[in-house]
């Protein structure tokens, strides 16, 4: 059952990415290109996605997930340097290729060799990240 609903959620996520045009790197880079031909589509996608999710978060109070377990606790409110450093690195890669993890996965079936090269590089980066993160934590602590 968990697998079935996980598959459905993944499929819906991918369908939404396709409908919204977020698998198109030109639309994403267009959003980031404030000094060029700026494309505000991404803001509509974000707004549309946050709306049902805000309702879902409200529904979690005093309840449990339908398939059991508990809802994720609110994360540690401290920001931490890893949050800032990681987000800056992520943003640089996002700007360079116009792909973030969701769309990179959703488009790999039809993005040819280029899509596969990006995805494999991303997986390599994810594999390499934990020791880098541990070093960053040890060196700087939290802000």
């Amino acid at each position, binding site marked *: 059952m968990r697998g079935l609903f996980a598959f459905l959620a993944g499929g819906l996520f991918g369908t939404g990415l396709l409908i919204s045009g977020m698998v198109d790197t030109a639309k994403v880079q267009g959003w980031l290109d404030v000094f060029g031909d700026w494309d505000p589509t991404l803001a509509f996608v974000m707004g549309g*996605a946050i709306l049902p999710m805000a309702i879902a978060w409200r529904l979690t109070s005093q309840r449990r997930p339908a398939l059991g377990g508990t809802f994720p606790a609110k994360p540690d409110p401290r920001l931490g340097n890893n*949050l800032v450093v*990681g987000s800056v690195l992520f943003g640089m890669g996002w700007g360079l290729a116009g792909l973030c993890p969701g769309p990179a996965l959703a488009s790999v079936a039809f993005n040819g060799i280029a899509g596969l090269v990006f995805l494999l590089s991303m997986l390599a980066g994810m594999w390499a990240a934990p020791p880098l993160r541990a070093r960053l934590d040890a060196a700087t602590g939290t802000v």
Partner: protein
Amino acid sequence: MPIDWIMGLAGGLVIGTAAALYLLVNGRIMGASGIVGGLVDGSGHSSGGERLAFLAGLIGVPGLIALIFGAPETHITGNLAVLVAAGLLVGIGTRIANGCTSGHGVCGISRLSLRGIVATVFYIGAGGLTVVLFKHILGVI
């Protein structure tokens, strides 16, 4: 309102519905980098089946739609150096920051998480500066 904005809003609502389903039914945060990253570095092996099922839907369903209706325009670069550098940065960055556009952006901002909001400000800011530098100044992308 341009059709692209309407499609963006409609697609966004579908994405948010997917995130709401994954939260309310499975009790999980729908963050693409966390779901796949936990499989890559081994931290999420206890929920491996659920993660793989999610990824099967995320890759397979758009693949099937593209097969039936034709693949959408993607404009992905053919520059291998850019693809590798960008992929590494996205992979390392999202795992160090513990989230990407779906986890910090969609799931974090919607619960007014300060971490999600700060992460989103920094990755959009860094992405914007990167596009300015590499497109308008260096002309690489």
